[in-house]
């Protein structure tokens, strides 16, 4: 039956950006590490081995190492990816690793996505707004159509890894852009009948160029999303709804 695919034992060269902003003497440089490839080697395995055997000061972030927590996004040969599930066998013998852009650098390959995501959540209020936040938990739950629950989960699969932000032209130019991650979240709450906010409320949150009208439709977000979320479609839909809302607003003002 299934056997793990054979890999030749290549000698890999990892070119890694080194920079520790906490250390005044540290200057950004590329450093190369050599490593013998092993069968089924992921970047998690490779980077851990480099740290344990070659340079104990190398910083990077892994948590679940199973592609579900979103901690380990970095640029692999210039493209955002989850390092833990990136197999070395899919690349040539030279692999360049650099930290995700846009986010604040902590050190080497480690960036502060947490602060960015929390700011985004606070700004977009990414929680169910409803009268039922302190529900009577003894009673039968509110019913929901099974299909709708599945549709919400489709959008809720986002792991806030930051790949879409790193791949976004607007995010590189506008620090306040909420990114596909933020717009997808609002699309998720918009779909959810438990959230009592209306388009007028969402318009207040994303009805400008730091929100849905900042998107240039370059589609980098959807191309790079490791969870294959339908980001471009969600943004387009939201933009239509927000544009309609903007018209209503304009009309009601005059």
């Amino acid at each position: 039956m299934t056997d793990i695919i054979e890999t030749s034992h290549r000698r890999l060269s990892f070119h890694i950006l080194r920079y520790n902003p906490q250390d005044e003497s540290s200057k950004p440089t590329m450093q190369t590490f050599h490593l013998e490839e092993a069968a089924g080697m992921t970047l998690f395995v490779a980077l851990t081995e480099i740290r344990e055997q070659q340079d104990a000061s190398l910083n990077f972030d892994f948590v679940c190492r199973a592609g579900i927590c979103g901690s380990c996004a970095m640029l692999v040969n210039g493209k955002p990816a989850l390092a833990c599930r990136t197999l070395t066998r899919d690349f040539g013998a030279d692999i360049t690793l650099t930290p995700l852009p846009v986010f604040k650098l902590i050190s080497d390959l480690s960036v502060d996505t947490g602060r960015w995501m929390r700011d985004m959540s606070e700004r977009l209020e990414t929680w169910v707004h409803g009268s039922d936040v302190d529900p009577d938990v003894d009673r039968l739950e509110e019913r929901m159509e099974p299909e709708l629950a599945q549709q919400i989960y489709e959008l809720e699969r986002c792991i806030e890894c930051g790949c879409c932000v790193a791949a976004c032209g607007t995010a590189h130019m506008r620090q306040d852009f909420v990114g596909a991650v933020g717009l997808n979240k609002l699309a998720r709450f918009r779909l959810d009948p438990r959230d009592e906010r209306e388009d007028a409320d969402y318009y207040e949150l994303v009805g400008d160029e730091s929100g849905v009208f900042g998107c240039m439709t370059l589609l980098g977000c959807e191309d790079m999303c490791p969870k294959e979320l339908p980001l471009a479609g969600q943004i387009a839909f939201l933009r239509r709804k927000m544009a309609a809302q903007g018209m209503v607003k304009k009309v009601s003002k005059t």
Partner: protein
Amino acid sequence: MQIIQTDVLIIGGGLAGLRVGIGAKRRGHDVIVLSLVPPKRSHSAAAQGGMQASLANCLKGEGDNEDVHFADTVRGSDWGADQDVVRMFVNTAPKAVRELAAWGVPWNRVQRGERSVIINGERVALQEKDTSHGLIDARDFGGTKKWRTSYVADGTGHSMLYTMSDQAIAQSIPVHERTEAIALIHADGRCYGAIVRNLITGELIAYVAKATCVATGGFGRIYRVSTNAVINEGIGAAIALETGSAVLGNMEAVQFHPTGIFPAGILVTEGCRGDGGLLLDRELHRFMPDYEPDKKELASRDVVSRRMEQHIAAGHAARSRFGEHLWLDIRLLGRQHIDTKLREVKEICHYFLGIDPVEELIPVRPAQHYSMGGIRTDHTGHSPTLRGLFSAGEAACWDMHGFNRLGGNSVAETVVAGMLVGEYVADYCDSADSDITISSALIRETGARQAAALRQLAERSGGEHAYTLLKEMQQTMTDNVGIFRDQERLQTAVDQLQALLVRSRHLSLRNQARGANPELVAAYRVQKMLKLAVCVAYGALQRTESRGAHYRRDFPQRNDRDWLNRTLAVWPGEEATLPTLSYEDIAIMKMELPPGWRGYGDKDYIDHPDTPRRAAEIEQLVAQLDAKDRFSVQRALLPYEHLLPGRYRGRNQRLGESGND
């Protein structure tokens, strides 16, 4: 040193910690949560399959209620659980699911009409009732009599954690990310907070709090092969142990999950088997019915993992270049099911094994998965020996899992414990018991001791490296303190771990980087992890019986006569290399469900003389009562409602069950 004050300090930003924080904040107390990582990255997110709660909405859940969930959980624990706590848990679990539903978790819902499922390898058509339509669905899980596991595809923990974390943001609860508590501030049996290291800058900060709650999850990373995230190193439990006052319970009770993918050890959910997946051997023979004719693949995890290893030892393993393993077959579930309900599993198979589980078999072997043991608390989550210290979730031993946890009971526990302990922490902070008078000298001295230890680590030269010791510890734990244990191997482990612990006091670093220094982190953590590891190994060596996940080849019977108790470990002093163990009896005469056969696994056990006495007493009580409803019988056997916080004492409404309204 900077000092930050708050009412409640929560160490750990996973489901349990966040829910404690939300509860305490709602009651008007200031809360700060510390987290090693952004909280949505916590290991709670990795729970795939679901959360047990006896909602009884779907057809195969009909007839389910708290009593059935209670009995399943106690049997699963091999009678090690505290039955008061299990009662509190099963009554609160439906409330937890419903609260999360209101907060936005997109639980899978029951679809009326025909439902095609796989049961015992056969495709079966069920008819879901109109009245159930749109209510929260459930899937089957191991060791349960009913389909009871509420789920969100196979991203249940992810959805729960995102919803909980966003609720915490909605309540403006600050989370100090990338911080690590490295010592508790305590004196004379009272905890006052923690000394905390900023993992980005390296700075030490003192957090002073009326109540401190450790919710740092399990300690799976003391093993080489574990499904746990790399952050699950048990530091929260270790700093509690290092106080010498707080106690760790049942550390030898370590769960091995049947289906870690081989060889990486990444989890694929029990939902695979719950939904009808089978375990096959080299000959593609379905072997579990040979060992467990009743529950087959869906016996409890300890039993299935043991049967798998037994089958491998008998020469039936498949082989790859990485070694021996068995197969998980979910092909029979079909593409539609896998694409919607097991999509994370599909992704994991794709990325880490290069296979499509719709077409191919998944190589699996049991891997360390869960820590039943942890910080010993009472039913309110409060440490009886270090006041002001609370604990909840996997980090705690309050003790609802005993010696084996059922699948689906752990994410359920995180939220239930969060709800209950959150109320109790708030009660404590409301009361004069929580008043603190703390000397600034105590804060300064505790901080200075930690700073000196870190400086010593950084300045010492010529010592061993942390990663060397870490690997040796993980190897000996996996080799000698695994699924099958015996005197010889456990003694080997204890000897090796003691030697490692001594060596860990002379570590040195290869780099002196300021700020984020992963080697320094590894060094101070391995010193702490070794203490936990030796508690596990030494506890296992001393426990000369088999119970739940703790299995001794040389003592294969469960022995209620001599070992129906909980192991308590205390760390006697800085120079010690072994914990001091004592034992806390579990009283049969107070049990609602006295010991017996679990319904799966070996039938062979040594009875306690109280068991028939209690059974006769219960029989008599029930006969005398002539009770009309299950609630009055239950209340007569094990009154527990008074133990719950007032707001969570209500009865759970169910379809088709009257008297709960």
